[in-house]
């Protein structure tokens, strides 16, 4: 049982190496947060949830497009599965752009959208690099994982972590989770699982993710931008305004030249065609 104290940073460590794709996390999340869900999506694979959205605050990704043949003797190629969720970024793009102040950082250092403050402008949706947030059709406000804010306030761990049967989703203080993740990584590497890597456990991605992952492949495979591409929307503020400013200055210059040159223009007119069509 995790001791939950306001003022400390809490989060998830999702270890994809032990995820079995049971979707207990999805069900527990929907159950607790009263999310009726969308119609199932049946595509080429086994993923019938589709993506994180307003109704799916946990999404178990199934990457099943792997070769049928084993890579080598005793090395059956495994599917990649990962229970995706809002990352509760330390430097959150959604929180950065939100014009209403609806998106806040809670006393548990999580990122929370206040449904009674949000006015549905959708700027956060354009900003979130993980495609986590979506407008809810019923409430007409932006929705995403709250990291079970209400449960945390009651001293309970989030529903998804509670339901996970393999401890793929672990909840706790972020500092402790990082230590645990590092040990797990070392164990996997010592077993020859060299492809294992941590994503978001350090500050290289958005200053650190409160919900970080142990991945079994490149981040891009799980639709996660790599560290180089994990950039904040505000990176374009200065350059965008500067370009506008320079354009504005050129507009002033061009406009003034147009007005002044008229004064200097030589008289070259006759009375032909005078002004009937101009009246």
């Amino acid at each position, binding site marked *: 049982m995790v001791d939950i104290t306001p003022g400390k940073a809490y989060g998830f460590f999702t270890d994809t190496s032990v995820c079995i794709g049971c979707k207990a996390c999805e069900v527990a999340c929907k159950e607790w947060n009263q999310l009726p869900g969308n119609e199932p999506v049946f595509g080429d694979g086994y993923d019938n949830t589709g993506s994180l959205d307003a109704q799916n605050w946990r999404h178990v990704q199934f990457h099943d497009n792997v070769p049928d043949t084993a890579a080598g003797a005793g090395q059956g190629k495994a599917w990649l599965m990962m229970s995706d969720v809002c990352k509760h970024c330390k430097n959150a793009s959604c929180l950065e752009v939100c*014009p209403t102040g609806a998106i806040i950082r809670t006393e548990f250092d999580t990122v929370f959208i206040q449904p009674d403050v*949000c006015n549905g402008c959708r700027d956060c949706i354009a900003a979130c690099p993980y495609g986590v947030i979506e*407008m809810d059709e019923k409430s007409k406000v932006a929705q995403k994982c709250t990291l079970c804010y209400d449960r945390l306030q009651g001293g309970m761990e989030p529903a998804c972590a509670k339901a996970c049967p393999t401890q793929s989703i672990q909840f706790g203080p972020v500092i402790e989770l990082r230590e645990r993740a590092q040990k797990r990584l070392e164990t996997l590497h010592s077993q020859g699982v060299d492809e294992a890597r941590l994503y978001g456990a350090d500050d290289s991605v958005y200053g650190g993710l409160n919900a970080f992952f142990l991945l079994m492949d490149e981040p891009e495979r799980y639709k996660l931008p790599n560290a180089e591409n994990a950039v904040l929307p505000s990176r374009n*503020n200065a350059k965008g305004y500067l370009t506008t400013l320079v*354009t504005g200055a050129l507009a002033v210059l061009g406009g003034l030249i147009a007005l002044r040159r008229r004064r200097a223009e030589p008289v070259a007119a006759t009375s032909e065609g005078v002004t009937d069509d101009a009246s």
Partner: protein
Amino acid sequence: MTLADAEHFVRDPDWTWYILFYFFFAGLSGGSYFLASLMRLNGNKLDAPAVRIGYYVAFFMLLPCPVLLTLDLGKPLRFWHMLVNTTPGDVGVSFKYWSPMSVGAWALVVYGGFATVSFLEAWARGRGRSVRLMEGFLGKLWAIVGGLLALFIAGYTGVLLSVSNQPVWSDTWALGGLFLASGLSGSAALLAWLVHRRRDGQASAVALGRSERFFPLLELALIGIFVATLIPAGTLGQAFGFPWFLLWAVAFIGLLPGLAGMARPRVTTDSTGAAVATRSGMLVVAAFIVLIGVLALRAAVIFSVQ
């Protein structure tokens, strides 16, 4: 950043028709106000009718803007949350200088005040009434501040798109300037036509027509920068692929009247600045083509990403 290096896993914000037309009207309102203020500050009395028309256009183009923005919200009745933070325990003014949407909401409110006062002033002057308060230093200061705000309103919408993590939008920093130049092109063409219809507006129509040649050049240069910034990100194909290149084609056609001088009235002036001749009957067609181009440019940028 190397070729095709940018990774985008972001969701579409569903900014569609309301936002498209808001960007369009904001560009024309801001552009018209700026041109009217520039003519006013230039101080040529022959431009007085054009100044009035510019402020009329700025005001009427501004009217749909708050309506469109409000209707676009999921919760339209909470439009005022853009200005007031209603977070329990943290109630107060909501202003984030680093969020273009927050800055834009405030700028629109302040610019709305300037556009309204300038409209009322123009209306009064048009009826032969003097507006002493707005003469002299205060009038010039009003035109300068209002003109700068107008430039912001016409251009910040592009910055708003860039300050995101969307493909194309966030891969460039040229959209603010591009939208501003485009708004000015449309405004100059529209004003040149409206002013040209008035017997006492011919002198201004000449200058507007000339500026209408400069702004498309500026816009063309910024489209070039836009393209150049998308190449390293690998998103050029998304912005200009099928069917979006059709919209870009319309946008380019919209540049032609200005570049070819079609929007420029064939008017010359005598030493007093009075118009003495004209032979252009194409202004309305030119203005229409330019305005459709202004709309198509914004549509191409907005829809190609979503």
